[in-house]
């Protein structure tokens, strides 16, 4: 193989990026994916512009109390009714988008930050270090992530940050395994072999050559996982290990409102609905992206 063709192969590998026009066409064709995209954009919009959207921002951010109007059903004044201390549930649900998105993004950032490099290392280096990493991954995957998160959350004080840590604790191995699988399949591709032939370092191969080719898989997985992380956070809240008031976290709001079911249905219904719509949005979008990127994930 001449130096020139080698360079060409390398260039081809790194440049075999994505045809955005084609992607958009494929995404557009599936109406459900568009609905997902619309929801996700809407939730992000809500999160960013919450202070300008909601009628009672103080109800979501400060220690407001208004016991004279507690447990009111939905009305024009309070679209989603009021909660047990008289706060506007609509305002809190909209602000809750901030919390949930932050939870999802940070957990995934931690999980990707730990899981992806480990997967790359295990795949590219292989050998004993690779085997060790994958065995440790197996251990973490040997029990459901909710159970692991529960065990960790039990140790920590119930705060939002600790919840994130607890969930991340059981989340990174999924990314390790995912990336490891990708690396194994990419390892024998021309451009990787070519880089090796050119004497590129393993670090370079891992992070410059292979990683960009895993991004679509990681993006799809992360999009789908956003929903599941938000759900897991809510589940921990349900079991009494959630964020502290007055934080308007959806899961905790359901946990607090659930004692008022079924008569004061609005208290748990609207945060539940917000979770449903958000998770659904990320799932639809993730599904759509999976078709677009033609990615297969197993074991989610």
């Amino acid at each position, binding site marked *: 193989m001449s130096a020139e063709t080698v360079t060409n192969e390398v260039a081809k590998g790194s440049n075999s990026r994505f045809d955005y026009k084609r992607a958009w066409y494929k995404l557009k064709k599936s109406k459900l994916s568009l609905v997902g995209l619309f929801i996700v954009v809407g939730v992000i919009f809500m999160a960013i512009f919450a202070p300008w959207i909601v009628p009672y921002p103080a109800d979501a951010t400060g220690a407001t109390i208004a016991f004279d109007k507690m447990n009111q059903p939905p009305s024009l004044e309070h679209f989603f009714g009021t909660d047990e201390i008289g706060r506007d549930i609509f305002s809190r649900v909209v602000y809750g988008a901030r919390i949930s998105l932050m939870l999802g993004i940070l957990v995934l950032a931690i999980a990707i930050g730990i899981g992806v490099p480990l997967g790359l290392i295990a795949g590219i280096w292989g050998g004993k270090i690779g085997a060790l990493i994958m065995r440790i991954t197996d251990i973490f995957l*040997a*029990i*459901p992530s909710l159970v692991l998160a*529960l*065990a960790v*959350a039990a*140790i920590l004080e119930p705060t939002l940050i600790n919840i994130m840590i607890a969930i991340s604790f059981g989340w990174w191995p999924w990314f390790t395994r995912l990336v490891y699988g990708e690396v194994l399949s990419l390892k024998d591709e021309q451009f990787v072999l070519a880089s090796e032939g050119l004497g590129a370092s393993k670090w370079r191969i891992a992070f410059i050559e292979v990683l960009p080719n895993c991004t679509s898989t990681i993006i799809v997985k992360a999009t789908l996982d956003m929903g599941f992380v938000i*759900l897991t956070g809510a*589940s921990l809240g349900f079991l009494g290990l959630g964020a502290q008031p007055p934080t308007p976290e959806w899961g905790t709001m359901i946990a607090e409102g659930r004692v008022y079911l079924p008569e004061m249905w609005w208290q748990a219904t609207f945060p539940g609905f917000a979770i449903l719509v958000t998770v*659904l949005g990320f799932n639809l979008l993730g599904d759509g992206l999976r078709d677009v990127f033609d990615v297969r994930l197993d074991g989610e």
Partner: protein
Amino acid sequence: MKEFLIKRTLQMIPVLLGLSILIFGLSRIMPGDSIRLKLGPEATAEQIEAFEDSMGLNDPIVIQYVNYIKGVFTGDMGLSLQTDRNVATDIVETFPATFELMLVAMFLAILIGVPLGVISGVKKDKWQDHLTRVVSLSGIALPKFWIAIILQIIFAYWFSLLPVVGRGNIVPTEITGLRLLDSLLTLNFEAFINNLKHIILPSIALSIATMAQIMRLTRSNMLDELHKDYIVASTSYGLPKFMIVYKYMLKNAFASTLTIIGLSFGALLGNAFLVEAVFGWPGMAQYGVQAVIYKDYNAIVGVTLVIGIVFAVTNLIVDILYGFIDPRIKYDK
């Protein structure tokens, strides 16, 4: 086959040992004074010290771990602070309830998820597909405890159709501990109906997410199958569509779905922690939740280990089943 079994079983051991180290370590760095909880608010410092000594909590952690593992092999998983009994006894008592709930939930998930996935895949981008996808994704997206409560409100509160909590009050002669099975084995139909009614709501609540996962996977596997040569060939031979879909495509699609079913058992175990709490289901998951809240060290380790074992064994069984469905799989490889 035999070699495969032995090999896989041997592979399980390091994972389970690692898991036990992980969870054991976590449980011992747990803060809080759970001994006080057991001895009551008025216990003195000496009482607590003496009790800790008797439980070996003041030994070095490595010694504690070694003793624990030794104990596990003799059926001693340490004393539960909640129940004052051997954790193994508690788990043996509570596990069948959880296992039965999971089996029924898995049965429902497959029974409903697979056909829906097939329809969704075959009718890709038609309304059937959109409807099943939205419904199933909603199933994934809804918090499990929420579904559980909503089901209770609809079926028990509004329509008084089904009981709300518990595991049935007519207990058949115990053979396996799985009451539906036991009542059938002893031909005790009264007990069967009674226990079936109690298990319907919790198992539905538990199965919805898994059902949706199975549906999604079946759908995408069916989509893959749709373009396989042998399926186009079957069409060209004039076979009925129903047969092509439910026999020729489904068996192939199901083979890949099967691996997910093994993994779904994990999700099912996790969600059981939420569902059992709502339905007062006297299972191991509820025991586990209590253990977390009460910071019951030994119970947490015990329950987690059992979950790890169940999970590993399920996946082994799934791998074996896979071989029965797909003749291309050879165990000796």
